[in-house]
């Protein structure tokens, strides 16, 4: 049953094609981001500086990587609460192995393998034993945090020249601006994530499983591969984000990244991905990460808020984002 030559009706249909509604939330998030930046520039001097935007990437590279992994998981209808702890564990492994004199390459491999393994393990438990993702990954979260403490309860500095150079290096951009190598890594991860999710069969299956797991199963899709796969990817991304975080803070610490899983989840959802799965884009996650970063930038440019007003403002800004987005994407029909 191969496809015959295109009939006129088919070509007409292709031409009639218009971007479906599912791009709407992302569009809304991006529009909001632009709007908020406009507002910030009007209000605070120095806010409009392109370096401020670049710093959003510099300061949130790890969150972007984390968000990409989380996007896979959420799109497939799951959730991964372990990512924050895995970031902390990764910094601990990195710092302690480097302290023990391992070469950077070996450290990187060790961290990535550990994160990926943990992710796979959770995926296996979730798929084959039917344990709810929330619980399996919550256990993963405790486990990773516990392992951190076993390695050391104190923070460990990273003094390895290789990693230090990576951390403190800059990638100059025209106009005297710069980003860090971490940003490049994050953008590469982002691009790969977008490719896999939007342009490969694996990616399509992720959406299908998120839309309806039973349908995907009955359609003969490889549900097991996808369900275990997304947690593996998320584990890998968390480990990578952990490395970036280790570079960002040049240290390993058991208490790093407490609650970062919520940031990652929030970024993904603000970016328009449905928490129930099946709908969303990686680009949205980037918009979500940048939106969260912008809130922080906003507040630190203000500089007059006391601790509690900071928290309240974060909540209020978050609210404004989601409400506006919700209103923009409310079904027209």
């Amino acid at each position, binding site marked *: *049953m191969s*496809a*015959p030559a*295109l*009939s006129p*009706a*088919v070509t007409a*249909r*292709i031409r*009639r*094609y218009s971007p*479906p*509604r*599912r791009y709407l939330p992302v569009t809304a998030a991006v529009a909001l981001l632009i709007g908020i930046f406009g507002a910030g520039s009007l209000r605070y001097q120095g806010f409009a500086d392109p370096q401020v935007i670049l710093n959003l990437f510099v300061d949130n590279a790890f969150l972007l990587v984390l968000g990409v992994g989380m996007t896979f998981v959420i799109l497939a209808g799951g959730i991964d609460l372990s990512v924050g702890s895995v970031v902390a564990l990764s910094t601990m492994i990195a710092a302690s192995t480097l302290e023990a004199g391992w070469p950077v390459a070996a450290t990187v491999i060790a961290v990535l393998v550990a994160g990926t393994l943990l992710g796979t393990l959770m995926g296996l438990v979730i798929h084959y034993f039917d344990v709810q993702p929330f619980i399996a990954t919550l256990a993963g979260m405790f486990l990773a945090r516990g392992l951190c403490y076993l390695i050391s309860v104190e923070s460990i500095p990273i003094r390895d020249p290789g990693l230090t150079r990576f951390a403190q290096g800059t990638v100059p951009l025209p106009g005297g601006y710069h980003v860090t190598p971490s940003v490049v890594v994050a953008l590469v991860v982002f691009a790969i994530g977008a*490719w896999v999710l939007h*342009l*490969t*069969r694996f990616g*399509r*299956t992720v*959406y*299908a499983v*998120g*839309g*309806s797991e*039973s*349908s*995907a*199963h*009955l*359609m*003969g*899709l*490889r549900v097991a591969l996808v369900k275990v796969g997304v947690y593996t990817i998320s584990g890998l991304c968390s480990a990578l984000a952990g490395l970036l975080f280790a570079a960002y803070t040049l240290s390993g610490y058991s208490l790093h990244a407490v609650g970062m899983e919520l940031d990652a989840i929030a970024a993904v959802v603000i970016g328009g991905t449905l928490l129930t799965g*099946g*709908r969303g884009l990686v680009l949205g996650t980037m918009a979500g990460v940048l939106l969260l970063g912008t809130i922080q930038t906003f507040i630190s440019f203000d500089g007059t808020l006391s601790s509690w007003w900071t928290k309240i403002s974060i909540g209020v800004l978050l609210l404004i984002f989601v409400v506006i987005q919700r209103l923009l994407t409310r079904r027209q*029909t």
Partner: protein
Amino acid sequence: MTQAITPAPSTALTPPVVEMRGISIGFPGVKALQQVDFRLLPGEIHALMGENGAGKSTLIKALTGVYAIDEGTVAVAGAEHLFGSPADSQAAGISTVYQEVNLCTNLTVAENMLLGREPRRFGRIDGLAMKARAGSILDRLGLAIDPGSTLADHPIAIQQLVAIGRALDLDARVLILDEPTSSLDADEVAKLFAVMRTLRGQGVAILFVSHFLDQVFEISDRMTVLRNGKLVGEYPTGSVSQLELVEAMIGRELETLDKLEQHAAADVPQDRVPLVKVLGLSRRGSLQAVDLEIYDGQVIGIAGLLGSGRTELARLLFGADTADTGSIDVRGTRRRFRTPRNAIGARIAFSSEDRRAEGVVEDLTVADNLLLTLQASRGWLRPIPVRTRERLVAEYIKALDIRPPDPAALMRNLSGGNQQKVLLARWLITEPELLILDEPTRGIDIGAKTQIQQLVAKLAADGLSVVFISAELEEVLRLSHRVLVMRDRAKIADRPNDDTVTVAAILELIAAGGPAAEGNPDA
């Protein structure tokens, strides 16, 4: 047991492509299949027949690896197989459309048809090729929809066709269609049959389940009949009459179908206040202004093709969607239906065409499902007393012959037809004055269908008004006092169901003025 018909001698010319022997499957409390044998030959269309709950879908799921088999063997092309999952059976060349449309409504039409087999270029999915391939499948089915549109935006009938499209795209040697025609209209069915015949010509073995006997006799070569999970027999289609087949299915004589009295159309007392009077009801993009009057005890049949706006009209009447313009008067008082609750308060009931998404509450029991609406209208503070509960549940399980007759059974474990009966009962329990039935007989076996039709007639005779929507024109005509014909989301005719109104006349009406299914007034 004496059979009216003798099974055909099992001298098949060609070796069967699928051979199942001694299949047994049990669910907690139900023996769904007992020692069933089944053969499917290459190049034949084989109908699997049986009442609701006879075990047809279970047999299909046993064959395709959805359920593990307790006992028995499955051989495909001579080699024994035990499929662990639908993916395995697909890999062995079996392509299946399951009864409850199993697609991902969050994805596009094209994606749904090609998931797992997307055309690729340089390792990436080739979007254009995908759309083209999907488009050509849609063309084969004569479906004029955008392959890039989201599946959720299409009514259930379109979704069913898309599911069939997906199965066609698989280059399979066995094609299984579990009630593919249940929500299709005559036109769509004809197109599907044409495709099926072509495939048969190419040597594909097709397993086909349908409750429409006419369709079965039109398309199938042989048939296998199941009853209560047991094999009754295997027959060449030509060798049995419809009546004999029905008796084989239900194990007794059928109360004849055409005993329903013809309704005199003229007995509507025009001077009385109508129960429901609708003026200019419309909704942007879905329905153009419709006027309608419904009197007590009247059955209004609505005829039309796929997407003609029948469901939309019903939803507006029920407040499931809100109308942009128009008014609804119930017994002379103006009502505004913002939510279904308003309509329920006005004693209007609505049984949706999309049983799975809008009807059943899968994880609740049959009893809870039965009483849901009654409970909702009583309010949470006044639970139905246990005794009343038990009485109502027992009464309606019996009245509608719901099987298994176990109030504590989970709704998700009922066969499709029995779920439909539960939903009907859910509404009848609330004693409505107007009952809107959108495709109530979809997926219902011939015995049950008769029961439901008789029920409608009886309810109408008792003074209940009914709006009856069905893809089966014969059914509409048999039951209604008035017939409303819709096309392109507008009412095009509204006339008493007298002798001049025939299936042919309605089809003509719909056809007049160009191709009905294509037109899209606000595209």
